[in-house]
C-alpha cells in the first residue's frame, strides 16, 4: 500500500529558530500514529505543514495532494482539531451542527447528535455558556461525525475529565476508526493513547528520531529489571537508559537479544512514556 503522508526534507524556520530540520517520514493508511515530542520539538509545525496552514521547504504529499497548493481539495478528506480547541463564543450547538452539515459533504448529522446525547449540551446552548470541557465535547462530536480519510488530533482531550477522555478514545477506536482511515495524534498524556496507537513517530529538535510500528518497538526495545548481582554485566551491554525502581535497576536496551537479557532478570516491552523519556534524554542532558 502506498503511504498516505509522505514527507521528505521538510524545513521550516521561524526567524533564527529552526522548527523543522530536513524532516522526513511516511505514514501508511489504516494506522493510528502518535507524533510525540517535547515542547518546541516541531510537532505543531509538522501538523500545520500537513494541513496547509504554514509554508515550508521540502516535499510533502498528503493523500497525494500538496497542502500548500491544493489545500481546498485536501480539506474534503482531512479533518483536524488544533491544539487548543476553540469554537467562537457566539456559536450555538444547533448552529454548529447545521453549519457543518451544510458545508461538509462527509458529515453524518445523526452521528453527531448521538454523541451529543451523551453530554449535557443542549441545542440552544452557546459556546460562551459552556465549560471548557463542554466546548471540547462539542468539537469532538462534530469531528467524529465527519468521515475523513485522515484525522489529525493535536492535544484533543485537553480540559476533559478522565471519564470523558477514556470514552473518547474508546469511541475513536470502536466507532470511528477503520482500515481506510488514518489518525494522527499528538498528546502529552501518552499513557492514555499508547494502547490504541499502531505506530510511533518521535520528533526532537525538528528531526524524526524514531519511526516504528508498535510491533517493531516490541521487537527492538527491551526493558529489564536487573537483579543487583547482574548490574555490572548488564551495564556492559550499554543500555540506552537506566533508572532505579524500589532499589532495583531497570535498564532499557535497544536492539539487544531478549533471551540474552532474560538472564539478568524479568524482561518486558517498555511503555511508550519510558521509551520517550529515554530517547529524549540526550536533548536535556
Amino acid at each position: 500500500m502506498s503511504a498516505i503522508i509522505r514527507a521528505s526534507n521538510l524545513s521550516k524556520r521561524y526567524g533564527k529558530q529552526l522548527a523543522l530540520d530536513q524532516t522526513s517520514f511516511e505514514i501508511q493508511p489504516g494506522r493510528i500514529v502518535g507524533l510525540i515530542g517535547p515542547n518546541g520539538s516541531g510537532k505543531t509545525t509538522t501538523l500545520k505543514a500537513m494541513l496547509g496552514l504554514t509554508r515550508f521547504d521540502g516535499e510533502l504529499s498528503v493523500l497525494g495532494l500538496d497542502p500548500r497548493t491544493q489545500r481546498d481539495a485536501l480539506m474534503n478528506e482531512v479533518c483536524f482539531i488544533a491544539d487548543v480547541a476553540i469554537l467562537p463564543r457566539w456559536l450555538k450547538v444547533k448552529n454548529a451542527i447545521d453549519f457543518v452539515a451544510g458545508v461538509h459533504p462527509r458529515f453524518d448529522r445523526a452521528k453527531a447528535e448521538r454523541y451529543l446525547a451523551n453530554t449535557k449540551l443542549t441545542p440552544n446552548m452557546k459556546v460562551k455558556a459552556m465549560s471548557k470541557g463542554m466546548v471540547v465535547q462539542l468539537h469532538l462530536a462534530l469531528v467524529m461525525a465527519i468521515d475523513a480519510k485522515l484525522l489529525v488530533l493535536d492535544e484533543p482531550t485537553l480540559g476533559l475529565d478522565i471519564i470523558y477522555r477514556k470514552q473518547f478514545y474508546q469511541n475513536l477506536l470502536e466507532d470511528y476508526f477503520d482500515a481506510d482511515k488514518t489518525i494522527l495524534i499528538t498528546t502529552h498524556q501518552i499513557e492514555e493513547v499508547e494502547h490504541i496507537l499502531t505506530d510511533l513517530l518521535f520528533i526532537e529538535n525538528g528531526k524524526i528520531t524514531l519511526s516504528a510500528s508498535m510491533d517493531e518497538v516490541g521487537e527492538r526495545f527491551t526493558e529489564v529489571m536487573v537483579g543487583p548481582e547482574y548490574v555490572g554485566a548488564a551495564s556492559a551491554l550499554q543500555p540506552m537508559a537506566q533508572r532505579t525502581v524500589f532499589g532495583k535497576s531497570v535498564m532499557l536496551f535497544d536492539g539487544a537479544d531478549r533471551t540474552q537479557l532474560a538472564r539478568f532478570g524479568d524482561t518486558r516491552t517498555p511503555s511508550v512514556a519510558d521509551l520517550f523519556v529515554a530517547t529524549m534524554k540526550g536533548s536535556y542532558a
Partner: protein
Amino acid sequence: MNTMKWLIKRELWENKGMLFWAPVVMACVLLAIALAALIAGHNMQYDGNHIGMVVIAGKPLEAFGAGAAKVYLAAGMPVLMMLGFLVFFYCLGALHDERRDRSLLFWKSLPVSDAMTVLSKAATALVVAPLIVFGIIIVLSLLMLALTCIGLMVHGTNAFGAVLSQADFYVSPLRLVGLLPVYLLCALPTVGWLLLVSSWARSKVFLWAVGVPLAIGLLILWSQRALGLDIDGTWFLSTITTRALLGVVPGAWFLFEKIARAGILASAEHVDGGSIFSASWAALGSVSLWVGAAAGVAMIAASTWLRRWREEN
C-alpha cells in the same frame, strides 16, 4: 452555492445584533416618536380651543397624495444613514474577530476555501446588510405613512385613496432596492480596504483603518506645502481617503461623482425618489467609480491571500 448560503447564514448568526436588531431598534424609536407626535398633535390646542376638523379635498388632496407617495421613504433616512456605520464596523471585525478569538483554525478545518469565506463576508457587507436595512426602511416608511393617513383621518380627511392610487407609491420601494448596484460599486473600495485591514492588523483595527489613509493624505499635503513638491495632497484626501473610508455611506456617490451631483442639482427644485434614482445611476458613467470598484476587488483578493497564508504566533 450551498456553501455560500451557509457562510452567509453564519455571518448573520454572528452579527444578528448588529445587522438586524440595531436598525430594527432604530426604526422602532422613530416610530415611537412619530406615534407620540401624532397623539400629541391630536390634542393640539390653539388659543385654548381644540383644533377641530381639517378637511382637505379635491386638488390639494391629490397633490398631498402625489407628494407623499414620492417621498414617504424619506421617513427611513436615519436608518439608511445607520447602514454606513453598520457596514463599516462589520467589515472591520469580519476577518479580525476570528483571528482574535482563535476560532480561525476551526473554520479552516472545514472544506471551505478562503476565497469563499472572504467573498461571503464581502457579500454580507455589500448586499445582505443593505437589503436588510432597505427592508426595514420600507416597512418603517409604510407604517409612518399609514400613521400620517390615520392622523389625517382623525381630523376628518381620508387620504388613503389619494396615496394608494399613485404609481409612485408602489414604485418607490423598487427604486430604493434598485439603488443596490450603485451602493455596491460605490462601497467596494471602502469594504475592500476595511477587509484588508481586518485581515492584516494584529490589533487596533479602527486606528489602522482610519489612520493610514488620513495620515498618508496629510503627509502628502504637508510635503506639498512645506517642501514644494509637485504632488496634490488635497486630491489624495478628497479622492482616495474619502473613498477608502466613506464609500459605505449611502449616497456617498453624490459626494464623489460629479455626474451624480450635477444630476441632483439639476433637479434641485423638486428632489424626489425618481430624481435621486436617476442621478444615482448616472454615477455609473463616472470612470473613477469603476476604478474605485476595481481597487476594492483587488483589496478583497489581497485579504483572501492574507487569510490563506497569514500565521499567528
